[in-house]
């Protein structure tokens, strides 16, 4: 399904009023993983890992997706790249619904959308040389061997790796250097869109800063649009233009990052921001953290998923799911009380 760029549309959910052109539109994405049980592995239920998520990523921005473990942020990312098939919903990239495309038709979009993974140890084949790993996407795109080598060497230099890396193996590199390899591989096809799924969580603090700096430099250099998935609220705050907060598969809040952090609407966002350890020991917080923990996604609480932990809970919250409604032209939140 091709949509013309100029086609006039009615505003719909997830649209940003007066926004710049979105490069990526996520529409009502839902993923239900089957839960098997019993002797014969019958499907006895489903985990709604991602529930009706819609948002847009504007061309050239860094969009943050934040939430605690099990909130569905990685599954959402994988569905956007069609690494996991959605149960329902669509992904519109550069005005084309890529969730409907055949493998063949999808290929050019695969070139334009790349990913870097969290684990720099698990995501590089230990039996292949750096040249083979970083050059693989180029070779698959039909580039000649000689050209691949030139391109890979150039890419290695761009991410700050020594030139002699070409014929070495992943185990010869430190964690930070391996993440540079992952970045070189992702950018070798000059994508428009980069999904970074917890790219620095496995790295030491001093190395994290190096890698994040590199990502920001490359974002400018390659005109990238980025979706940055992280549980680290500090990293999200300093990198992203806008942020969406997920809780148990649902988006609960979305908006410009500074606005969301300084003025959270949803009580969960407020709790998350409040739980960031203060770096000034004189400012230690003595106020109460939210009680309890994230419930199991297999049996999420009815109504608003956050209501059992919420300090502002009212009767309605346990019955009715709040809408993700606009609070101003670029803020959305899902809460009955605020």
């Amino acid at each position, binding site marked *: 399904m091709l949509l013309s760029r100029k086609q006039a549309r009615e505003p719909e959910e997830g649209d940003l009023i007066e926004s710049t052109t979105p490069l990526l539109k996520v529409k009502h994405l839902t993923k239900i993983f089957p839960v098997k049980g019993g002797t014969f592995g019958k499907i006895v239920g489903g985990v709604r890992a991602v529930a009706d998520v819609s948002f847009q990523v504007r061309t050239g921005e860094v969009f943050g997706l934040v939430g605690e473990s099990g909130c569905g942020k990685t599954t959402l990312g994988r569905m956007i790249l069609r690494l996991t098939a959605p149960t329902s919903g669509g992904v519109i990239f550069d005005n084309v619904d890529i969730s409907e495309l055949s493998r063949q038709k999808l290929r050019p979009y695969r070139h334009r959308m790349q990913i870097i993974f969290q684990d720099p140890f698990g995501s590089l084949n230990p039996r292949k040389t750096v040249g083979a790993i970083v050059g693989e996407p180029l070779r698959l795109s039909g580039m000649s061997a000689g050209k691949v080598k030139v391109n890979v060497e150039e890419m290695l230099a761009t991410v700050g790796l020594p030139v002699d890396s070409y014929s070495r193996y992943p185990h010869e590199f430190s964690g930070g250097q391996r993440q540079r390899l992952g970045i070189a591989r992702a950018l070798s096809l000059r994508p428009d869109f980069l999904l970074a799924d917890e790219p620095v969580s496995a790295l*030491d603090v*001093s190395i994290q800063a*190096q890698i994040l700096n590199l990502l920001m430099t490359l974002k400018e250099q390659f005109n990238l649009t980025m979706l940055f998935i992280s549980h680290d609220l500090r990293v999200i705050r300093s990198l992203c233009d806008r942020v969406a907060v997920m809780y148990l598969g649902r988006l609960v809040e979305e908006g410009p990052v500074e606005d969301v952090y300084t003025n959270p609407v949803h009580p969960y966002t407020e709790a998350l921001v409040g739980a960031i*350890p*203060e770096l*000034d020991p004189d400012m230690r917080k003595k106020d109460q953290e939210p009680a309890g*923990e*994230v419930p199991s996604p297999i049996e999420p609480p009815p109504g608003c998923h956050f209501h059992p932990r919420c300090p502002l809970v009212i009767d309605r919250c346990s019955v009715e799911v709040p809408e993700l409604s606009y609070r101003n032209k670029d803020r959305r939140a899902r809460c009955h009380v605020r």
Partner: protein
Amino acid sequence: MSNVLIYNVLISNVDSNTVSPLNDPMTMPLLEVKDLMTHFSIEDKTLHAVDGVSFSLFRGEILGLVGESGCGKSVTALSILRLVPDSGKVISGQVLLEGEDLLEMDDNEIRNVRGNRISMVFQEPMSALNPVFTVGDQVAEVLRLHRGMDKSAAFRRAAKLLGQVGIPDPARRVSEYPHQMSGGMQQRALIAMAMACEPDVLIADEPTTALDVTVQAQILRLIEELIHEGNRGALLITHDLGVVAEVVDRVCVMYAGVIVEMGKVGDLFSAPQHPYTIGLINSLPTPGRRRFIAIGGSVPDLMDLPSGCRFHPRCPRAQEVCTQEEPELTLTEKGNEVRCYFPGNKHESLRRAI
């Protein structure tokens, strides 16, 4: 509580006289580590995991041991309890628990210290708990072993302990298996196990790293209460400066097997002196600024350490002398102890240099 007050008074005296609390004859440290060295032999090479570490832990305080992976912070903890894996060996040093050297004890004596006077909480709660026993059994085991309680008394006490660490409905959950609990609840159960014998010292190795942010805050608060109210001491090992700033009283910053800076948490954050400490603090994200001030290079190979100061290849202040001889840990006017020839809180100049 009174000891905490005494300690605080001592600390405030320290400020005016610039006497280290470690040299003060009035307080005896609860746990004192002196010149600890733990090396590993790998093939024919020696890995200097811990290379001369000294610190003291007093009652009522949480001492932070902070550093990046491979800096020796976990091996320090394992050496204290003599749990270093076979390829490693404590080469020299003393670990004094109220004056008694743990390294000199025989196997029976040290077993009586572990889990009883010094207990430990590990990073991964799921792998630290035995999946085939109930949580209650595992907490009760400690009590039966060290306190000689019978099975049912120990189990009842276990339920009470689970309640004390904030596990709801402890009477029911005491009979649950670890997989039935969430990560935060498992970590609480481990803390209950560690606190079962009311130890003097709690060693917590990255206790919140595997947990979510909102749960992390709860667990840190729990540890803080248990230590301050019970007048115990805790050694909190972490790589997260946020955790340090939140609960720790004094900090040791480790780099490549040695302590490079040590001081009260307030001083360390407001006026860090060692270029590595400054680099660590600077590399944290700052709101509204997309660039991070990274430390160049990476942590050295512990089998092939640089000459002189271990940090010199990455240090913006490095001079000739730094490449030749390792600096001593020396007391600065601020009361911090720093291992650097050119200490100082030259924050602004460093911002550009690093």
